[in-house]
C-alpha cells in the first residue's frame, strides 16, 4: 500500500542522525519533526531566524514575534537562539545545516529539482528554496511519486523551471525510496509496503535502476 504523507515523513525521519541540524520545508517535510527516532538529538533551523524551534504554543500564549518560515506561531526550546536573515543563510550556505528536506514538483534523474514556478500560473517566488538546494550537501525530497494527473514527478529532465541543479541526493515518495546516483538515475532502495517494483517502474518516467532484491520499507 502506498504511504500517506505521514508515512513519507516517518520514513524520512529514519534518515536523521544524532547531532544533526535540520531544515524542514513546508508541507510533508514539516511532519518529519513529529517522528524523530528515540535516542538522538537533532535541532531544527527555520530560515526566518531561529534554531531550536519547539512545538506550536498553547492557545493564548502565542507571540507575533515568534514564527517559523511558514509564518506559523511557534515556541522556542531551551538552548534556542534567534538571528537575522543574513546569519541564517550563512548557516545554510556555509553548510552548517546537515540535512534539508523539501518538497518538489519535479525531480530529474541527475538531481535537478523544480519546485517554485509553473509557467502561466501566478509565481509566488522561491523563498529560501534556491539557497537551500544550492548549498546543502544532503538534500532529501519528500513528495508524491506522481502528480494529480497521475504523471510521474521523477523525470529524465525537469520540464518546469529549475530551483537547483544536480543537488538532490535522495527522494522519498509514497511508493519508494530512491538514491540519485552521481552518474545519473534513480536507484531504487526500498519499496513502500506492498508496492511492487513494477508499480514503481510504471510511475517513474526517469531512469530507474533496480539491482538485486529491493526490500520493503520498515516503518512502524
Amino acid at each position: 500500500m502506498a504511504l500517506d504523507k505521514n508515512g513519507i515523513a516517518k520514513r524520512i525521519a529514519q534518515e536523521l542522525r544524532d547531532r544533526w541540524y535540520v531544515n524542514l520545508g513546508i508541507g510533508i517535510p514539516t511532519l518529519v519533526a513529529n517522528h524523530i527516532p528515540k535516542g538522538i538529538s537533532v535541532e531544527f533551523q527555520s530560515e526566518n531566524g531561529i534554531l531550536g524551534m519547539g512545538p506550536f504554543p498553547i492557545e493564548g500564549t502565542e507571540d507575533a514575534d515568534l514564527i517559523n518560515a511558514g509564518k506559523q506561531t511557534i515556541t522556542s526550546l531551551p538552548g534556542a537562539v534567534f538571528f537575522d536573515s543574513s546569519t541564517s543563510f550563512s548557516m545554510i550556505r556555509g553548510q552548517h545545516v546537515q540535512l534539508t528536506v523539501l518538497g518538489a514538483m519535479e525531480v530529474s534523474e541527475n538531481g535537478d529539482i523544480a519546485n517554485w514556478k509553473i509557467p502561466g500560473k501566478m509565481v509566488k517566488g522561491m523563498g529560501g528554496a534556491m539557497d537551500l538546494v544550492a548549498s546543502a550537501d544532503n538534500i532529501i525530497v519528500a513528495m508524491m511519486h506522481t502528480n494529480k494527473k497521475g504523471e510521474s514527478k521523477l523525470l529524465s529532465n525537469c520540464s518546469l523551471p529549475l530551483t537547483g541543479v544536480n543537488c538532490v541526493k535522495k527522494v522519498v515518495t509514497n511508493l519508494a525510496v530512491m538514491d540519485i546516483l552521481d552518474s545519473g538515475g534513480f536507484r531504487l532502495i526500498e519499496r513502500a509496503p506492498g508496492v511492487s517494483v513494477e508499480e514503481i517502474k510504471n510511475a517513474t518516467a526517469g531512469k530507474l535502476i533496480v539491482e538485486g532484491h529491493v526490500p520493503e520499507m520498515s516503518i512502524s
Partner: protein
Amino acid sequence: MINKEVKNAVEACKDIKSGMTIMLGGFGLCGIPENCIQTLVNKEINNLTCISNNAGVDDFGLGLLLQKRQIKKMVSSYVGENDEFERQMLSGELEVDLIPQGSLAERCRAGGAGIPAFFTPAGYGTEVGQGKEVRKFNGKPHILETALTADYAIVKAWKGDKAGNLIYKGTARNFNPPMAMAGKITIAEVEELVEPGELNPNEIHTPGIFVQHIFQGEKYEKRIEQRTVIKN
C-alpha cells in the same frame, strides 16, 4: 552621543518621495515597520520600488501600499498571500523581481558593508542565474550577485535608544539588521525608545551608526498571519 530621535513616523518619513527605492524589514507580517507603512500610505507618494522579503497581505503590511497602487516594483523572495498583488502582477501593472531569500539578505548586508559583489551558489543553473557571471570555486559553480542599497531603509525593532542602537525580539529580527545597514538613510521605529545608556552595549543588534532617525511607534497591531496553537 548623536541624537537620532524624531517625533514620529511623519517626521521620519518627511523626505521620502515618489520614485524612491525603499527597503522594508520583516518576514511575512512579523517585524514590519507598521507605523511608517501607514505613513507612506497617507503621504500618497507612488512609483516606489520596495525591497522586502514579502509583500504583506491584502489589508496589512505592504498590501496597504499595493491597494493604493503606490508600488511600481517589488523586489522580494516570496509574494504569496496577497490577491491584489497577484492581480497587479498578472495585469502587468506591477514589476516583480524575485530573488532567492539568502541572496536577498546577503545582497542587503553587502550593500551596507561596502562589498559591491560576491559569489553565491544559490540560483546557479536557474533563471535567477541567467546573464550572471558564473565561476567555479572548489569545483562548484557560483554566480556573481551585486549589492543592494536603497534611498531609505525602514526597520522595526523592539527597543531602541536615542543614539539609534536597536534590539529586536525573537524572529522579528529577520531582514531588519541587514537592511538597516543598507539604507542611505535608515529609519528605525521601535516599540520602546529609551535614553542612551539604558541598553546594555553588549546586547545591541544594530549599532546606532547605521540609523539616522528613530522614534517610538504610536501603536503596534502585530498581526499574526498563521495562528497555530495547541488547544489547552
